[in-house]
């Protein structure tokens, strides 16, 4: 059998617990790692974790589903069910397990039951939309997500999900609209600027390419290590006019200063 995590990395249970917390806070989806660390923590140090154990069970359960570890997911779920028998939060986790097992109808029943009890439960609504996505029903997923956003207009995660769905449907205009919403509420986020620039570039045409250039430049201003923005500018720069030749030179100089060659 493989060495334990604590042996391999020479860490104690506190460091393992803290690592799990960091991954929770950063919303990382490194499920294989979470399963490795979490499974060991739970099986060998459960008694030391105090009330943290419940949120760790939830985190490990979701990661286990991601890795097709239904055995581990079920163990965590059963502990949570015992402790929180009437919880909507735990019911959502049961639903997620059914989703992982592709038992979508049963999963939907769970979420519908939650929504009957609590119509404002956003988590359940998002799971229902995720099911539509998993089933390849993009049009319905888009429609439901639009309806959701009419009610919960500040939900960043939902706006970004919608932009992704639109990009996959090649509906660049609507994707751009979603990214505009995100840029308005997150003016310092270089990733939204850069994604918006990529969408504009893809749409093509003089006006859109001009906007693309503007937003790649903005992304670079916000984060001068954003390589996509840098290359985006580079590609837009070499397009004919004298003004563009100047910006091409500026980009080349920037590339040189970062010691990157284009070969």
């Amino acid at each position, binding site marked *: 059998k493989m060495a334990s995590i604590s042996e391999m990395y020479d860490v104690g249970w506190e460091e393992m617990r803290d690592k799990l917390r960091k991954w929770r806070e950063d919303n990382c989806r490194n499920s294989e790692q979470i399963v490795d660390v979490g499974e060991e923590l739970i099986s060998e140090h459960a008694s030391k974790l105090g009330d943290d154990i419940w949120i760790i069970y939830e985190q490990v359960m979701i990661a286990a589903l991601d890795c097709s570890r239904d055995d581990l997911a079920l163990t965590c779920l059963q502990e949570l069910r015992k402790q929180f028998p009437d919880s909507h939060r735990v019911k959502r986790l049961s639903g997620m397990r059914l989703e992982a097992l592709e038992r979508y109808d049963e999963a939907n029943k769970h979420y519908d039951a939650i929504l009957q009890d609590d119509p404002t439960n956003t988590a359940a609504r998002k799971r229902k939309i995720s099911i539509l996505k998993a089933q390849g029903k993009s049009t319905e997923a888009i429609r439901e997500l639009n309806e959701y956003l009419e009610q919960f207009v500040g939900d960043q995660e939902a706006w970004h999900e919608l932009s992704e769905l639109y990009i996959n449907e090649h509906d660049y205009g609507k994707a751009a609209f979603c990214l505009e919403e995100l840029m308005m509420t997150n003016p310092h986020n270089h990733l939204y600027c850069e994604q918006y620039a990529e*969408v504009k570039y893809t749409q093509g045409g003089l006006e859109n390419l001009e906007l693309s250039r503007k937003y790649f430049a903005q992304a670079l201003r916000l984060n001068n290590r954003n390589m996509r923005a840098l290359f985006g500018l580079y590609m837009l720069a070499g397009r004919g006019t004298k003004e563009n030749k100047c910006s091409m030179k500026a980009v080349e100089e920037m590339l040189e200063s970062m010691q990157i060659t*284009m070969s």
Partner: protein
Amino acid sequence: MGEVELSCRAYIKMFLHSCLFPRCSINGLLLSSSPAGGAVCVTDCVPMLHSHLPLAPITQLALTQVDVWCSQTQQRIVGYYQANACVSDSSPTQCALKIADKIAEQFDNAVLLMLDGGKMSPDYRVPPIVMYERKDSRWMLKDKHTIMLRQWEETRAIASQMLESGDHMLLVDFDSHLDDITKDWTNQKLNTKIAELASPANGNI
């Protein structure tokens, strides 16, 4: 249309690419170091994206850079591969057709390869791939009998072994290269590993 041969190295890198990003749609370019004419021998591949496949700028950038690299290394771009995030649907998307069309402009016998995620588990013994070729400006399903994977059992075994050892974590696609410019999208390290694991009898690496 003619025969297509898929090398061990090309298959394994595509396989590892899809294993590295199981929740994303992924794509990449198929390369050949063999002279034109006769069967198309796909000897290598360059993993490209795992996000925003339909968006143009990074795809164009990757195509340009791979083109330059190919001309320096006596290779050419002969095809395109893609694996969809949604496992139940392995048909080519609009963007797959677009990119494949572009490649076909430069190479008559270009191939479009879709990885079938649903058939990648260990219980399936046949290659989880579906190939298309261009006939009358449309992409048509290729006759399975014109697709060759030499030493398939061995290739399959190496792929599983590398996945078990976590070697897929070593794979670099163009997206990852843009996140960390020092990463090598030609994947020389992985090529070496694959060559080491393949038996000396398999000349078609």
